[in-house]
Structure formats: C-alpha cells, structure tokens
C-alpha cells in the first residue's frame, strides 16, 4: 500500500516535471532522477513520449500566411522635423513680427494725428478741400499786427507777436515760416517796404483789394463774396479766408480779431493792411512754396502699411492655426 502510494506520488511528480525535463530546465540532480525513473517506468516513459510528440507536432504546424503588411503610414524623421515644425515656427514668428509692426505703425499713426496736431478732425480736412489755404496764416497774423499798428500810429512797429497765442494750437511751422518776409519791420527791412504799398496810401490799397481777390481766383470765394459786405465784415472774412485752415483754432482767432475792429476808419485801415499782406503773399514766393501742413490726404502711406500688415497678420495667423490643427 505504501509502495503503491509512493509509486503514484513518483508518477505524479515525474508527470508534473516532464515539461521542464523536456526543456532541460531542471537542476542536474533532478534531471538525473527523472531520467532514471523513465528508464524504469514504462507508464511514465509513454507519457514522456506522447508529450514530446505533442511538442513536435505543435512546432511542425504550418504558420498562417501574412495577409498583408502591417507597416504604419507614419512620417519619417525628416518629414516630422523639417516640414511641419519649420513651417509652423516660421508662421508663428511671422505672425508675431507682423503683429508688432502693425501695433507700432498704428501707434505712430495715432501719435502723428493727435500728438502732432497736424490733423485735428475730419471737418478741418473738409474745410481744407473747400478752401485750400494757399496763403498761410503768417500774413494774416501779420496783417492783424499791422492793423493794430495802424490803429496806434504813434507806436513803433514791432515784430509779429500775435502769432504766439495761435502758435500752440495752430500748425506752428508753416505759420511761422513766412513771418520774416511777410511781417517786415519798417526799420529793419526797408526793401520790402519799398516794394509793398505803404499803409499811408489807403486808397490805392483799397483799390488793390479786388486785385488780390482776383489773383486768388476761384479758390478764395469767401473773399470775393465779401466785397459787398461791410468793411469790418469784409476784413474779418478776408482774415478768415486767408487764415483758415492750419487748425480749427486758427479760424477762431481772426474772427475774434475782426469783431474787435470797429467799423470805422481803422477797419478800413486794417483792410488795407490785409490787402497788403495778401499782395505780399501773392508776390513772395516762399509762402506759396511751403506746402500746407494740414493738407494731409486721407490715404496716407501709414494707412497703406497698416492695411498691408493687417493682411499679413491674418494670413500668418490662419497658417499657424491650420498647421496647429494638422499637428
């Protein structure tokens, strides 16, 4: 009974280790013990043979043919590294650069418009187109100055001081440019005085007013219409027409000056001086050569650059989004 149990245990133990025995995975002494048992036990040997046969059959079984290739449609390193990322980086850089440039140009444009004071608003531009300021403001201020001097003939002529209050608001440089020639002090600059009609000959100068309005032509329509108005009103209109449009404040200043002139002989004198200044302005080449500072077109190069940069920003931004989605 004990021998039978030992034999069964031995058979079961050998059977359990036959797989490792076949693969030579047992220790040397265990392998030798199984080998010894197989020589003595026909039952275990038959089990061993059947197991070896099974493994041989499995290894002889035909392999299934590969139905297709399983390679993946993945990009190569060159494709991954070079094309998408380089294009993506370039598009990102171009977008940022174009955006910064656009902001810079917009900033320059805003500073030019509101900081420099060249163009205050669209109505002023419209006024420019309606009545171009061919004569700058300097002769007007000079005329006002001389009108004041005519009202006080005992005082010595002074340089044009009324231009200073208008300077901070009106366009400064074109207004100041013709000053030395338009407002000549009598003592300092005798030559222009000899050319221009003097304030002491009002009749001839008054007769010259239509000439200057005629020389102004159709552009100075306000002055032409003022020929039938009162002298003071005519003087005010004349000053307004000539001093119009460096800036909106420049139009206000002569009007106040005109209202301050009483409709008396002084008004006639001031009108005479206006005519002087206008005649000088038409004769002197410098004011006509100086471009009007406020004559800035609506389509400026800055605007063109802004639109171009905006198009670039949109284009490169769309490219970045497209490449990002593809990634």
């Amino acid at each position, binding site marked *: 009974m004990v021998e039978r149990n030992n034999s069964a245990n031995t058979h079961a133990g050998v059977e359990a280790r036959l797989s490792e025995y076949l693969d030579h995975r047992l220790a040397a002494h265990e392998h030798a013990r199984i080998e010894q048992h197989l020589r003595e036990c026909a039952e275990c040997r038959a089990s061993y043979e059947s197991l070896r046969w099974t493994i041989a059959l499995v290894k002889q079984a035909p392999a*299934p043919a*590969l139905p297709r290739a399983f390679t993946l449609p993945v990009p190569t390193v060159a494709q991954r590294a070079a094309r998408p990322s380089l294009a993506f980086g370039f598009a990102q850089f171009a977008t940022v650069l174009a955006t910064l440039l656009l902001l810079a140009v917009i900033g320059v444009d805003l500073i030019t418009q509101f900081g420099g004071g060249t163009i205050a608003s669209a109505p002023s531009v419209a006024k420019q187109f309606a009545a171009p300021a061919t004569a700058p403001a300097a002769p007007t201020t000079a005329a006002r100055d001389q009108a004041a001097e005519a009202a006080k003939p005992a005082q010595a002529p002074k340089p044009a001081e009324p231009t200073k209050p208008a300077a901070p608001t009106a366009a400064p440089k074109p207004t100041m440019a013709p000053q030395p020639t338009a407002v000549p002090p009598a003592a300092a600059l005798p030559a222009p005085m000899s050319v221009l009609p003097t304030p002491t000959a009002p009749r001839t100068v008054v007769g010259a007013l239509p000439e200057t309005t005629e020389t102004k032509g159709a552009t100075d329509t306000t002055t032409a219409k003022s020929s039938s108005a009162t002298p003071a009103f005519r003087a005010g209109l004349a000053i307004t027409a000539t001093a119009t449009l460096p800036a909106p404040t420049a139009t206000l200043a002569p009007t106040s000056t005109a209202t301050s002139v009483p409709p008396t002989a002084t008004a006639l004198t001031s009108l005479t001086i206006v005519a002087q200044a206008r005649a000088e302005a038409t004769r002197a080449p410098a004011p006509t050569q100086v471009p009007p500072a406020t004559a800035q077109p609506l389509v400026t190069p800055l605007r063109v650059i802004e639109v171009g940069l905006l198009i670039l920003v949109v284009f490169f931004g769309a490219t970045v989004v497209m490449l990002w989605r593809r990634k």
Partner: protein
Amino acid sequence: MDEQTFIRAAQKGDGAAFNQLVRGYQHQVYRTAYRVLGDAASAQDATQDAFIAAYKHIRAFRGGSFKAWLLRIVTNACYDQLRVKQRRPSASLDAMLLDPDNPAPGLERAASESPQDFAERQELGATIQRGLAILPHDQRMTLALVDIEGLSYDEAADALSTNVGTVKSRLSRARAALRDFLVQQQELLPARYRLNSEKV
C-alpha cells in the same frame, strides 16, 4: 543597420525605422495572434493594434528583449480581442477552424513541399488549432509563445507580465491538455503525424 539602431531611430520619431522593425516582426506577431485568437480577422486587428500601440509607446522601451516587449503588447491586444469576442459572440472563423472539412485558410507553404505534404500539414495545423481552442487563454498564450514562437521561459514571463514559475506551470498544464486532445484526435491526423509514426 541593426535592431538597436532602428529602435533608437524610432524612439526619435523616425517612422521609416519603426516600419523596418515592423517588417522584421510582423510575421511573428501575426502568427502569435492567430494561434491565440484562432481566426485571421481578429488576428489582423490585434496585430495592427499592437503595432500602433508599439509606435505610440516606443519611447517607453528601456532596453532588453524588443521581441518580448513587442509580444507583450500583442498578448494584451489579443486579450482585448478575446474580450470583444466574449461580449459579442458571432459565427467567427473559430467555427470554421473546428470544422474538419474546412481547414485553416492562408497557411504558408514551404517551397520544397509537395501539394500532398502541404495538404497534410494543413490538416495538422487545423487539428492543433482546434486543440489550442480548448485551452484557457493564459495557457494558450504561454504555449504559443514558448512552443510555437520559441521564447525562453524568461522571455515568455516578460511577455506575459508574470514570473517564470507561472510560465512553467501554465506550460506544463497546456502541453498535457493538448497532448490528451491530440491523442484522442490522432486518428484524424495524417498517418505520418500519428504518435507511433517514426516521422514525428
């Protein structure tokens, strides 16, 4: 270039290098999946899923046996396919494989093999596939990896994410169960593949 070079290149994102690895292992991977799953369609799905997963996670490969690493992915893909088949049982090719009149399709034929030998080997393959189908999944996978694909115990343990002792016990039980099945079915085998034949 050797395998390690391709692996390093693939880890850097080189798809061409990874496809070289695919070409080197696709037969083995598909064969394993076919032995485990028993039908060509599921084996194709598992093989494709395994290579896609391998491509996605190849940076996680830290050396060792690339074959074992790849076969571990395949076994996981096979488990996924088996779960799908259990949830949605259908008249799959398993039924065809169990049919003696309908041998397994698409078996490779050796160049020097006669048509009769190839037909007999097809019968053998179908019988073995039926025997594998009766084994539990883990035993079937262990037997496929060790006896069919030739992995060592250590490699099989690595591929199955288990230890060597488990591989030994699973393999022993799988061989014994398949032996019992083949002994019972040996009358259906061609004469040269029977137990007492000298050719085996």
